[in-house]
């Protein structure tokens, strides 16, 4: 799909010159309005409503993504014609008004591989808005679910285990719980350090969508690719992608004092090293420290990641299964820390 998509986009763009062009179907006037349509098709983001044929500007992936119950995520962005995104000094990407970030969630063995839900982050004049849509049973369109919903799904994880869960499609507020910075909605994933553009792009293609494409430098390793970084660096990438959207000084977990961004000091108390629980309740699991160096079994960060009990589990939303492989990486990271640095 991506090749067709990119080739189509490339052909159109080459014909038109340096900047983005209106792609067939995207209803920019709906994107730009204050409307909250009941049907996803109102945005014209998919070719004839087919979730496998997106009509945005370009697809993207992340070096290390947020775990969401082993769902496959398909992401693309729609940037309005004539506008470009800009990479800011801190590596976040400033998308122009009229941009839509589209993320579809599904499993290859659920609903014939069609997505279960598609979430939109739309940059409107007044700021970003987050909208969750759940695909209809016939797979031809998706319907707004402002209040969220639990959808029963059964799938196999990579280790072969079968999971039957009530997958939680977040409500509009829960979207913001993660996508929040100082109380305003912001994108999480697309940061230069984690952002991967299509591999088949021509060198100049970046310049069609970005004012300063040279600033798009990935820094974070791929969490499950040992060749991409050390255990500690991959653990830090995992924590950045899975925790830091809340665990930063302007995020939903600011009061915890636990800050897990790629840029935070990984030896500090505020990174969890020797940090006692704050407002953790049962999440402490009877342990004294979020991270007890050398001792993953006595680190309640691990305890919370390996739980699905809502009074214990972290992250608080978006996870009904344990990410065994992610937890294993963090266990190894803690186990390899010298105990003396405690």
């Amino acid at each position, binding site marked *: 799909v991506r090749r067709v998509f990119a080739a189509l986009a490339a052909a159109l763009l080459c014909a038109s010159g340096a900047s983005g062009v209106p792609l067939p179907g995207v209803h920019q006037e709906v994107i730009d309005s204050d409307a909250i349509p009941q049907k996803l098709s109102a945005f014209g983001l998919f070719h004839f409503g087919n979730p496998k044929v997106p009509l945005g500007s370009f697809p993207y992936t992340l070096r290390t993504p947020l775990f969401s119950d082993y769902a496959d995520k398909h992401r693309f962005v729609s940037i309005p014609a004539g506008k470009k995104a800009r990479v800011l000094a801190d590596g976040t990407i400033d998308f122009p008004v009229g941009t839509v970030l589209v993320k579809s969630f599904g499993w290859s063995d659920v609903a014939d591989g069609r997505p279960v839900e598609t979430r939109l982050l739309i940059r409107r004049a007044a700021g970003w808005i987050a909208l969750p849509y759940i695909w209809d049973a016939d797979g031809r369109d998706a319907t707004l679910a402002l209040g969220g919903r639990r959808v029963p799904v059964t799938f196999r994880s990579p280790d072969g285990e079968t999971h039957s869960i009530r997958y939680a499609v977040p409500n509009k507020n829960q979207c913001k719980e993660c996508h929040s910075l100082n109380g305003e909605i912001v994108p999480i994933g697309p940061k230069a350090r984690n952002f991967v553009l299509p591999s088949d792009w021509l060198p100049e293609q970046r310049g069609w969508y970005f004012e300063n494409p040279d600033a798009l430098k990935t820094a974070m390793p791929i969490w499950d690719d040992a060749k991409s970084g050390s255990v500690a660096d991959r653990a830090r990438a995992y924590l950045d992608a899975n925790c830091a959207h809340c665990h930063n000084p302007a995020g939903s977990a600011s009061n915890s*004092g636990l800050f897990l961004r790629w840029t935070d000091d990984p030896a500090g108390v505020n990174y969890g090293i020797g940090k006692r629980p704050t407002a953790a309740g049962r999440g402490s699991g009877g342990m004294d420290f979020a991270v007890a160096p050398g001792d993953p079994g006595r680190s309640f960060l691990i305890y919370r990641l390996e739980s699905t009990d*809502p009074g214990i589990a972290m992250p608080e*939303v978006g996870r009904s299964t344990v990410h065994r492989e992610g937890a294993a990486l963090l266990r190894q990271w803690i186990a390899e820390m010298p105990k003396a640095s405690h």
Partner: protein
Amino acid sequence: MPIHRFAAPLAAALLLAVPATAKTIRVEAGGVDANEKLQEALIVAEPGDIVELGAGTWALADGLSLDVAGVTIRGAGVEDGSGSILDFAGQQGAGEGLLVTSDDVFLTNFAVLNTKGDGIKSKGADRIVYHKLRVEWTAGPKETNGAYGIYPVESRDVLIDSVFVRGASDAGIYVGQSKNIVVRDSIAKENVAGIEIENSYDADVHDNLATKNTGGILVFDLPSLPMQGGHNVRVFDNIIVENDTPNFAPKGNIVASVPTGTGVLVMANRNVEIFDNVMEKNGTANVMIVGYRYEHKDPKYQPLPRAIVVRDNEHGRAGFAPAFPGGAEIAAAMGGSIPPVLWDGAGDAIVLDKVGVLSLNLPDVTTPQSAAKPSPADLSKGTPPAALPGITLPAAMEAKVQ
């Protein structure tokens, strides 16, 4: 130019005042989609709106949340049978029952029961009013209960009035990292901590009943948090009696270290006034004043209690079952009980109540507790700091509960 470009600033201007179009969105318990309708009402509500909960019980599988400023959530009451009951016994997700992240919200007349995590949390929600609420874990004290019952954090201007909280495995009413706070006319029963003011500035805790908790009212400051240096807290006109529930907090949490039978506990704060309270049958102490004695790596943190004033309280029997290490031996040596005021010997405090004070003579927080040399102390000398002014909340907040 499209019309919406004008509409957006106009709408913003209208929202600054309470809109003339404020409406009531009524939701009813029962029906297959009652839960979704309730959450959707909390999403589509606009500033000034009232979301009115009918009488009945919602059996909720997920946490609720409100992110619209100026909204009232009003139920039909807190009692089983006649009230509006949000029951989270079957909760599958979210860290709390109800999360509020917007300003000027008024919560009144409903109950939140048996959440897996916290009961009602408000974060960065200025001028929030909690009023006539019941937050309860109905099986009573259990380590598997959620941590906090009512939990405002990182907020300015907080009013908690006429609530009932029972069974929290941390604090029934917990105010953290906030400023300008009033907790009054409320009942905290059978929690680990009844009421806790932590890492906060300017609080009045008055006319509450704290009973059958592990510790009645706690004023704490902890290191390595964004807001610290807790100060200016008045605890007055409360009834703090019979706090004798064995500590059931999950280990590791700071409240797990609170000795059973504590009335008021001040740890590492400054300018705390404790006066005109009635305190009795607290087996460890009616008032305990201590430093933060755990290892920490926060150079900005001040671990000592300072300028603590204890005056004009009515003390009944206390200190008859001191539940800290070595407490029983000290009590035995002193004829069966220790005095009602206990100080670890670090920092400074003035105690003008006509009761005994026991000092553990641990002059700094690095001296281990095993080095305690308990002896009676006279803390009545010296000049108390100037009395703290009372807390005044914005008139619009007080008007909501009149």
